[in-house]
């Protein structure tokens, strides 16, 4: 039995006087890709933030393996260049030399294809190899989203939490995201992804969030 990478157990949550989830259950194992669908305000982002530990105002239990989170806000500093953004993120998040406790789970992580990739390589993979040193304030929305996605490749982590990864991206970028997700799942990772567009990944299953009115 493969251990679960992400579990929602009986999660209930009300926000702004409205019940978002009632005893919501979901388990992601290695190789799973779940696309969260639902109308605006149906709680997709809230669910992702709960998985990441950025939202705690709910009943029930959430248990997640070591993860990458790419939210609505890119988390890309406009004053720094793409390369600096990645380097700083890598050193802040994955500085295992100084802080052994932050090491990712080796058992799951070892099978993953990405990770251990240098910042320059990661940028090249997301199609930003040409502009590693321009300030991010000069980049377009889609390019900044690509910088955020490059973070996924820096360090191997089994779980990806992506909040609308396809927005602002061109056709090429959308294909890239789907390729990354597919490869990640094939290598034994798991992806939870909120999206309004259909994912054309072979392993993707959809979960419809009822919510709405």
């Amino acid at each position, binding site marked *: 039995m493969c251990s679960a990478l992400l579990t929602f157990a009986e999660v209930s949550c009300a926000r702004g006087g409205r019940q978002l989830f009632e005893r919501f259950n979901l388990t992601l194992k290695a190789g799973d890709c779940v696309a969260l669908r639902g109308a605006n305000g149906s709680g997709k982002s809230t669910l992702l933030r709960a998985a990441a530990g950025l939202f705690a105002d709910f009943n029930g239990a959430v248990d997640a393996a070591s993860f990458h989170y790419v939210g609505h806000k890119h*988390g890309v500093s406009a004053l720094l260049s793409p390369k600096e953004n990645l380097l700083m993120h890598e050193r802040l998040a994955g500085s295992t030399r100084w802080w052994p406790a932050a090491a990712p789970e080796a058992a799951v992580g070892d099978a993953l294809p990405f990770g251990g990739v240098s910042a320059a390589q990661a940028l090249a993979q997301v199609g930003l190899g040409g502009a590693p040193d321009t300030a991010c304030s000069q980049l377009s929305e889609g390019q900044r989203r690509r910088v955020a996605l490059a973070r996924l490749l820096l360090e191997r982590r089994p779980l990806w939490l992506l909040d609308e990864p396809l927005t602002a991206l061109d056709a090429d970028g959308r294909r890239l995201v789907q390729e990354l997700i597919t490869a990640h799942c094939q290598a034994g990772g798991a992806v939870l992804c909120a999206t309004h567009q259909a994912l054309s990944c072979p392993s993707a299953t959809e979960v419809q969030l009822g919510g709405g009115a």
Partner: protein
Amino acid sequence: MFAVQFRREWLCVLRSKDEALNPLVFLFLAASLFAIGFGGSSDRLGEAAPAIIWVLVLLANLLSLEALFRRDFEDGALEQFVLFAQPQFAAVLGKVAVQWCACGLAMTLLAPLLALMLNLSAAALPTLLLGLLLGTPALSLIGAVGAALTVGLGGGGVLLALLLAPLHLPVLVFGVSATLDGGAGLAATAQLYWLAGISVLALTLTPFATAAALRISVERS
């Protein structure tokens, strides 16, 4: 961790120079207005100078603190910071250290000029500088807690000032009192020890509080 965060913030400060210079310009401008406002009575100005300098330093510091986390909050870097920067204590300290260098330390270096403009007695100058050097770290460290709490709120500036005024009061009181004693030729060691004590206490306790406050702000957004 401290070094990485310090470098990142330092790059950010270097690339937004005009924003980083704002508090210093404010300090200089306000001091010159005081000098002009007091007109010819340079004796009275000299008496009031310690209080004026300390209050202006405190206000200029508030100005810079308000912007401490705002940009990171808006572009989402703060989410990543809260989730992944480990240990948070060192990372927070790195952020605040840069704020202090760009603001507290810079203001301390600017203080001799202010002392000259405001006719502060030469005897008080060494005590003023030492007091600022020991007191401004406390202002930055305590201020960071308030800045972290108010970063998600619109128009947090006034709230931040209200929140921090009572906490910054001891630093102001001891700082002014030390400078006055120094100017009168008395030993100001007691007040300076107090300032150092407050700073050390803030150094050990506030980074934890700042990290917790940042998490609250991010979760609430």
